[in-house]
């Protein structure tokens, strides 16, 4: 016994080098797909490689992708938020109301962000405070938030946003680089650090994997989840500002159906819908893929609705493929 104690076994940190595991990761597969789509698109249409049209292409996914960043965290923690698009509608409506009271651009921004945050906190409170299942609660708040927009606006719209407000959704930081795109890149870096480099991010993974063990390890599960819902609400507020600024108007039907697209981004990006696994890089690449495919189809005059067949099939295949492969391998061994 005492002999065993003196010979301490050395256990290496890891067996595979980080490079090795990076090469055989989901993100690499996605990146390959992304490059493939990029190449196909550039051959298929002469307009694709034009810097301005590429820049235009980013607009159709950055707003959704911004929310997808936060949604990824919520889903990794084992919850889901279906109310994000409705939060955009409500936040946009609140900005419209502020506009009627003569608010200028800074006030509009604050109103947009605050509305999103409050909606997110409301979801978080219901889910963590009352311990209700997030999938039903956010279906409820989804109707509720958008319903308020309908009550306020009916079939009307808010218009006449200040000229400088248009910068968020239409402005360019430098040459073809839009403000939206820059904001997305910066947010992606921040979310990457938050999820993969901080204590908070580690706790998100642990909660998603095993909430009971997390609680037994002293992680304040309820608080983390509450903050994630607030964060998702806040990012929906950001998206509301960008979208309202880009469209220049608010209608209650704004961003309808976005929640499902955003979840598709997240799941395609390799986040496990049951929680516990995922990466920001994957979500970012998935967003680019979806953006490029939409844009590429657009250049070929393929209607958006056909694109949805592709999206849906991709979503199912991407999840089914690893399962089928695993089954097949297992069968081979047995």
């Amino acid at each position, binding site marked *: *016994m005492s002999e*065993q*104690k003196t010979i*301490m*076994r*050395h*256990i*290496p*940190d*890891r*067996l595979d080098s980080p490079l090795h595991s990076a090469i055989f990761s989901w993100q690499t597969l996605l990146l390959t797909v992304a490059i493939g789509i990029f190449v196909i698109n550039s051959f298929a249409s002469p307009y694709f490689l034009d810097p301005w049209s590429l820049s235009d292409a980013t607009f159709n996914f950055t707003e959704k992708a911004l929310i997808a960043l936060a949604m990824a965290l919520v889903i990794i923690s084992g919850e889901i938020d279906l109310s994000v698009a409705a939060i955009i509608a409500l936040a946009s409506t609140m900005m419209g109301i502020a506009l009627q009271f003569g608010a200028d651009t800074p006030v509009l921004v604050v109103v947009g962000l605050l509305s999103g945050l409050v909606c997110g906190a409301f979801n978080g409170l219901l889910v963590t405070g009352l311990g209700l299942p997030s999938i039903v609660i956010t279906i409820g708040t989804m109707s509720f938030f958008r319903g308020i927009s309908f009550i306020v606006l009916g079939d009307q719209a808010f218009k006449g946003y200040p000229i400088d407000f248009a910068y968020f959704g239409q402005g360019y930081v430098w040459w073809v680089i839009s403000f939206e795109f820059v904001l997305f890149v910066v947010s992606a870096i921040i979310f990457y*650090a938050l999820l993969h*480099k*901080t*204590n*908070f*991010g*580690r*706790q998100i*993974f*642990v909660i998603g*994997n*095993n909430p*009971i*063990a*997390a*609680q*037994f*390890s*002293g*992680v*304040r599960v309820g608080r983390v989840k509450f903050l994630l819902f607030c964060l998702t609400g806040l990012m929906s507020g950001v998206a509301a500002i960008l979208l309202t600024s880009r469209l220049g108007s608010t209608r209650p039907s704004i961003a309808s159906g976005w929640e499902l697209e955003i979840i598709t981004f997240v799941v395609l990006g390799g986040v496990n819908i049951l929680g*516990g*696994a995922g990466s920001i890089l994957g979500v970012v690449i998935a967003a680019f893929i979806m953006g490029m495919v939409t844009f590429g189809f657009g250049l070929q005059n393929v209607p958006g609705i056909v694109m949805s067949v592709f999206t849906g099939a991709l979503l199912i295949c991407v999840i089914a493929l690893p399962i089928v492969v695993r089954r097949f391998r297992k069968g081979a061994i047995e």
Partner: protein
Amino acid sequence: MSQPKLSLSGISKSFPGVRALDDVSLELYSGEVTALIGENGAGKSTLVKTLTGIYHPDEGEIRIDGEVVTLTSPHSAFELGITAIHQETVLFDEMSVAENIYLGHAPKTRFGTIDLRAMHSKAKTVLEGMGAGHIEPATLLKELGIANKHLVAVARALSIEAQIVIMDEPTASLSHKEIEDLFVLIEHLKSEGKAILFISHKFDEIYRIADRYTVFRDGGMVGKGLLADSPQNEIIQLMVGRSVDQIFPARDSSIGEQVLSVSQLSHPTEFHDISFELRQGEILGFYGLVGAGRSEVMQALFGFTRPSRGQVRLDGKPVNLKSPADAIKAGIVYVPEERGKQGVVADLPIFQNVSLPSLHEISKNGFLQLANEFALTREYTERLDLRASSLSQHAATLSGGNQQKIVIAKWLATRPRVIILDEPTKGIDIGSKAAVHEFMGDLVGQGLSVVMVSSELPEIMGMSDRVIVMREGKIIAEHINDETLDAATLLRDAAGIEEVAA
């Protein structure tokens, strides 16, 4: 009684790292009750799962009326007339009594639909036949008490005309009156010629109802016979019989000042008036039967559940433990019994498991420092002699013993004052058991204090300085662990039986 109704021979079943059943045999006879006796981890529940078709044995054969049968699924067990009444009664709360009795074999009408009227009247007949006519077939199961739920489970067994009935700790949460009623019912089943396997820890019940016994220890069959020929002490000896592989480390720790004192801790339904103290360098054993409330007390100490009353003092100062995070901060940590559910995070790497409660220590301004994290993990896992190919290996890929080492390492890394180990060696192999025991010795040598909840007598007797016995949510006895303390005394305290003249 020439031919047994059911006989098992040479049954073995292994799980990664553990041999749960090792060449066991068992016979059940029609019209007789056979008691299966053994400590936790002796292999009783694995046997029940094998008999009900959930697990498939690696080796051995099962015969019914002398014919070899294979139990491929729960459904095939059901068709062969085997039914089990489980520890935690597995029935359907939201369904009616009649539906629970006839799920899967309801009487049908000519059109193939369920004949509700026939189902209710047959359920009524079955219930009345067993003296449970007070239960209405249309009642929702959730409106019944535990005792009546048991009766429904028994009625289900009768309704499928099962010839072999397995009762897994059926008396665990029944009152004395209810237990008596159950025994009347078992007599009724016996008179109908059923072969019954009765699993219980309680010797008075076993002697009261069973005809035969079979004793399991560490996954093997160590004895069987007729109860009438076997005095209680003989069976206790068989059950406890210290296994040769288990040598407990000798240690000479000096017990110091009082560290933790708990007074009058109570919970509305789980435990009552729990008071004890713990000294520096001491191992305090908590012994009792499964469901005696030991884990519940520990989880309250750890801030996981809120006690309704009572006080906890650490170093003489009262502490308010509202969550596990508070307890960890105060220096009390808890290695839970349900390792898979409450202990390890299976799909995360080892180092992330170990650093989890210490994230604040290894990080800078909230940012993780991988180098610190690996260093911390290495320090504690190597002390525990963890066997793993790398620290980035997922916890799920390790054996139970090594997973337990991860959980213990995780807590040691927080440098606690008091470490509570709940069934620390349950379901892990002998080698890892020894490592865990040896390490407990080291811990107290370094001045930590240990509370060890265990249902294994050798472990309790081999490791503890003092032993507290709990039964039904209360502290029954406290013993200094010296030469005068014997296993039989503890077992009697825990099971609530009077001393009998040997």
